[in-house]
């Protein structure tokens, strides 16, 4: 079947992606402030550092496509078009919030917008996403579901059961593992039995790939391929995005399990800085290209011009 592979995004789309990455970062910085000042309850899990994943992945979707999210869900929600006002109101438990104040950070959802919810259960969204993909298949639609989950969820049984089902039924779902190196204090490389979790896709006979989760365009291209495959009826894929969370798991994380040097090293790969720099460089490149094109397309001077402009 012919697949539509990752297409070039328009400058407007790219601009909007950069804006969403900033939005996610600022949203979560503000959520941390609100939490620290006691305006929030429960816990909040910042997505800061991981913005490229949600934004790159969701750029590959159509509005009718769906996502499932995690406890660390603000980024996914914003990237899929969630309204920051309704989200923020929900964090404060207000009647105007997405969940009328009943859900809080971990249960924000916007089913109309295809956001089937953050989830307080690690792995809780995996079966839901697979089921949503089944619903699309049954309805004869080519909608795709993206299923976000962390490296910690890799070892939940539901992933195994869902992946097998998605494979045998060729369901249009893309499993996106956000490998941010830790599940609370548990290092991905110690608690998951394989260094590269994408090999687990082999156990189900579907493609497994990894990409640089700090590079929004790399995420976009990788996920777009998987989405195209799913949309074409060829079944699920696993995409592992290698990334990092800058902050603690939640406010109050003792952070004794990792050192500052590691954090600093990752920050040098900051996804926003990088995309911004790439965008700026690209803009300059574009100008230069335009200059070259202009130059090349321009006429040679006429011979008549030889003696012109010697004097005013």
């Amino acid at each position: 079947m012919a697949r539509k592979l990752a297409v070039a995004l328009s400058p407007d789309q790219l601009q909007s992606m950069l804006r969403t990455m900033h939005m996610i970062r600022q949203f979560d910085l503000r959520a941390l402030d609100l939490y620290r000042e006691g305006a929030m309850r429960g816990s909040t899990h910042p997505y800061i550092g991981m913005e490229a994943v949600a934004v790159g992945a969701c750029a590959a979707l159509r509005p009718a496509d769906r996502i499932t999210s995690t406890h660390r869900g603000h980024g996914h929600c914003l990237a899929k078009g969630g309204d920051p006002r309704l989200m923020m109101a929900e964090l404060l438990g207000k009647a105007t919030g997405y969940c009328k104040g009943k859900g809080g950070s971990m249960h924000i959802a916007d089913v109309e917008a295809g956001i089937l919810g953050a989830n307080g259960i690690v792995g809780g969204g995996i079966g839901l996403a697979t089921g949503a993909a089944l619903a699309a298949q049954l309805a004869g639609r080519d909608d795709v579901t993206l299923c976000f989950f962390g490296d910690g969820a890799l070892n939940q049984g539901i992933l195994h059961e869902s992946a097998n089902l998605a494979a045998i039924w060729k369901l249009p779902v893309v499993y996106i593992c956000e490998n941010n190196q830790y599940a609370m204090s548990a290092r991905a490389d110690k608690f998951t039995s394989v260094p590269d979790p994408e090999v687990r896709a082999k156990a189900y006979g579907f493609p497994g790939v990894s990409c640089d989760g700090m590079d929004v365009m790399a995420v976009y291209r990788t996920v777009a391929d998987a989405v195209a495959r799913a949309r074409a009826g060829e079944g699920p894929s696993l995409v592992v995005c290698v990334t990092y969370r800058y902050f603690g798991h939640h406010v109050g994380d003792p952070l004794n399990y990792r050192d500052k040097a590691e954090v600093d090293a990752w920050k040098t790969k900051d996804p926003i800085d990088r995309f911004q720099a790439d965008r700026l460089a690209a803009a300059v490149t574009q100008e230069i290209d335009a200059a070259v094109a202009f130059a090349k397309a321009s006429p040679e001077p006429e011979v008549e011009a030889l003696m012109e402009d010697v004097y005013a």
Partner: protein
Amino acid sequence: MSRPVIETTPAPAATRVLTYAEALNEALREEMRRDPRVFVMGEDVAVWGGGGVFGVTRGLVEEFGPQRVRDTPISEEAIAALAVGAAVAGARPVAEFMYADFMGLAMEPIVNQAAKIRYMFGGKASVPVVFRAQEGAGRGNAAQHSQSLEAWFCHIPGLKVAVPSTPADAKGLLVSAIRDENPVVFLEHKILYNTKGPVPAGDVAIPMGVADCKRAGRDATFVGVHTMVHKALAAAEILAAEGIDLEVIDPRTLVPFDLDTIVASVRKTGRLVVGHEAYERCGIGAEIIAQVITAAFDALDAPPVRVCGENVPIPYNARLEAAALPQVEDIVAAVHQVVA
């Protein structure tokens, strides 16, 4: 999913005798014809001997095809979780667990997802899924294939719980469960599948939350579910011979629960016996007693009595199994106790 929605005109109340399994099958078939979003999934529901180990899904794959009648691998957690996700995304799944005991593997999606999504999402989603399973002992299936676990589900807000005891109730309640916008745990009983009874043809939804008086009586009220309804009717015959007139009420659904009908009965008889096969401790019998006590303490002439499964895993040996289960004579004895 190009099948047209077939408009059903309520059929004339022609009544046939069907088994409980056939009645369930008819409900599934008619709802699948009516609404193309309804589909069935579970282990061995399609290929196996033509439809499920108890024949409930017989013939469905032939009529609706393998897309809408899906055999699954042995993956109970995923069966439940996919059904929930599909329901949120607009389908209307009927997910089958071969034995209710296996729902221990599926509690997370049923309890933490299905039951809570609507509320957690501020009312902006619905989860129209039916989780079917069969409970109960009596066939020597031993401890892991004989439990009645309805109390677990009744405990969880957001779930509805149906427990039909007759073919007619089985059909009418399953129709309602499938049409419900909420997750319904629909618990059948393995011993009842081959029991027969009259079932009206056509569109016969029985609303959830309406108890059924299976036998009117003046002297004592029995409230029980599944096989206990039938055992109570047998006990009522024995008691009638002694001049004791037992009223037998089947709540049919445990959530919602028709307390009014039961309280009215207790106000009439002044005596209450409650029965279920499930383990007595923290079973639904305690809940029914607690609710009646609150609503009609003054009306009770004797302490209510429970006739329930022993607090013991269900044993294999026939004699021990029978001793672990509430029997007709236990109901008779309990009624003697309350009317004494």
